[in-house]
């Protein structure tokens, strides 16, 4: 328990040191103040934004696109992954297409999708969905390969059909892998939501706040306050998902992510 306490104290100290260093660099005039405002001012602004209803609406808009896109990705990737993982012929057939689609950096699709769908919520959701599908899909296929063959054979020996084996053994066995895939996708989804907003430049959202602040003179403080919010969102989302995984699947510790 003492080691854990020491860890927390050291971690807090590290945060203070980092904030202090930023503050000192700015106050000492090593860089232009308009380029790097003191950390205290940035943090104060970030707190102030919490009371700004326009800013909060923007955060809500970003999170809506994020959640909708991620949900769609789960709805598509899990069934497709189950089919790919349980029917080798389909897997072999689809792999070529998948291998060509996956390495494409998803932000590169922003111009095309904007041309197709305009620069509204649909564009954001479509891009978030596309980018989030891959980790969930690959984790589903991988997890299916890791399920206990003995349990499957036992069920088959008792005369259960393919679907029953899938629902009773394979899906529960794969669930921790799917959850890990969703956690990876959640971070990617946030990247895509913010990136699309920054490029589209109007509407509402965290990325739009950051982009517009970047254009304003002396807007760096607002940009950095927005970045602090973005980081905090990322941390909260990841923390919540890790916590959820531990609660739901306590029997499988360790790392479960692939590619």
């Amino acid at each position, binding site marked *: 328990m003492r080691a854990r306490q020491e*860890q927390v104290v*050291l*971690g807090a100290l*590290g945060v203070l*040191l980092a904030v202090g260093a930023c503050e000192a660099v700015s106050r000492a005039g090593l860089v232009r103040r*308009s*380029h790097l405002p003191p950390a205290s001012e940035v943090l104060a602004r970030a707190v102030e934004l919490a009371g700004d209803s326009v800013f909060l609406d923007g955060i809500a808009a970003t999170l809506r696109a994020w959640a909708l896109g991620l949900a769609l990705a789960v709805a598509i990737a899990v069934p497709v992954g189950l089919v790919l*993982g349980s029917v*080798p*012929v389909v897997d*072999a*057939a689809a*792999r*070529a*297409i998948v*291998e*060509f*689609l*996956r*390495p*494409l*950096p*998803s*932000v*590169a699709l*922003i*111009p*095309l999708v*904007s*041309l*197709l769908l305009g620069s509204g919520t649909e564009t954001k959701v479509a891009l978030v969905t596309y980018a989030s599908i891959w980790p969930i899909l690959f984790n589903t*296929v991988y997890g*299916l*390969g*890791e399920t206990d*063959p003995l349990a499957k054979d036992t069920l*088959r020996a008792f005369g259960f059909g393919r679907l029953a084996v899938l629902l009773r053994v394979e899906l529960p066995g794969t669930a921790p892998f799917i959850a890990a895939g969703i956690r990876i996708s959640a971070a990617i989804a*946030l*990247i895509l*939501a*913010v*990136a699309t907003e*920054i*490029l589209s430049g109007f509407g509402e959202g*965290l*990325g739009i706040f*950051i*982009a517009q602040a*970047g254009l304003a003179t002396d807007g*760096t403080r607002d*940009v950095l306050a*927005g*970045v602090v919010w*973005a*980081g*905090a*969102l*990322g*941390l909260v989302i990841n923390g919540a998902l890790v916590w959820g995984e531990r609660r739901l699947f306590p029997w499988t510790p360790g790392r479960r992510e*692939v590619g």
Partner: protein
Amino acid sequence: MTARAKVPPRGPGRAGHTAGSVAARHALLRWSVLAAAVTVWQLAARAHGSVYFPPPVEIARHAVDLWFSGPVRHVFLTEEAVGNILPSLGRMAAGFCVAAVAGIALGIAIGRSRRVYALCDPVLQFARAVPPPALVPVFVVILDFGTPMQIASIVLSAVWPVLINTAEGARHTDPLRIEVAAVLRLTPLERLRFLILPSALPRIFAGLRLSLSLSLILMVFSELLPGTANGIGFTLTDAQSRSDLLTVWAALVLLGALGHLLNTGLLAVEKRLVGRGRTTTG
């Protein structure tokens, strides 16, 4: 590749198939499916005539015209390719290399001490949680548009996965081996070379893979911003503003191929290094 549970045998004559012939059949299936998909796309695009989804043959022809129809002494690269693809690749290479070197060096420094690791962990977790594109406007303000801003964006986004993974890897070096190294009086450099690096290598490569795809994403993203003068991302936005769908598609295909090549290359390096690292350390 993942070891997958075998499906029960079906159909006659299965016992006669060796693993090699199954792999060959799968490869054949894979390529024929891809060819079929492209053909269907080609026919559908021809029949439908949509501006937004041009037929693949036209995209390919356009890509060749645009980038690979130059003079022989330029290895067939056109001015367009030299002016846009090469700068993109250069920025990405520079950003990724700096991120990799800095990430591995700092990661090892942090991972070697439990205290330093505890000190840095929360700050690193926060840095990693920031969606990288959110940082780009910061660099635009500080460095203005141009290559330094783009390289800085790539480095500051791609460095975290390598750094955190390397620190994790270095932290989990077998304590027994460290004691043996102390008994053998290995110098710190020798310890790094024969002990810490090999044991951290698989995790380092996991980090490098993430960093590579982040570098590619940030390379494109930083070039998509208004105010950029060249690059593949610039080609994309430029074509978008002119509603030149053929160029948009050609650039997408190029980026997909690029991503595939880079991943394959890194995997090949990983296979060599990690494989050798395992054999020398037992």
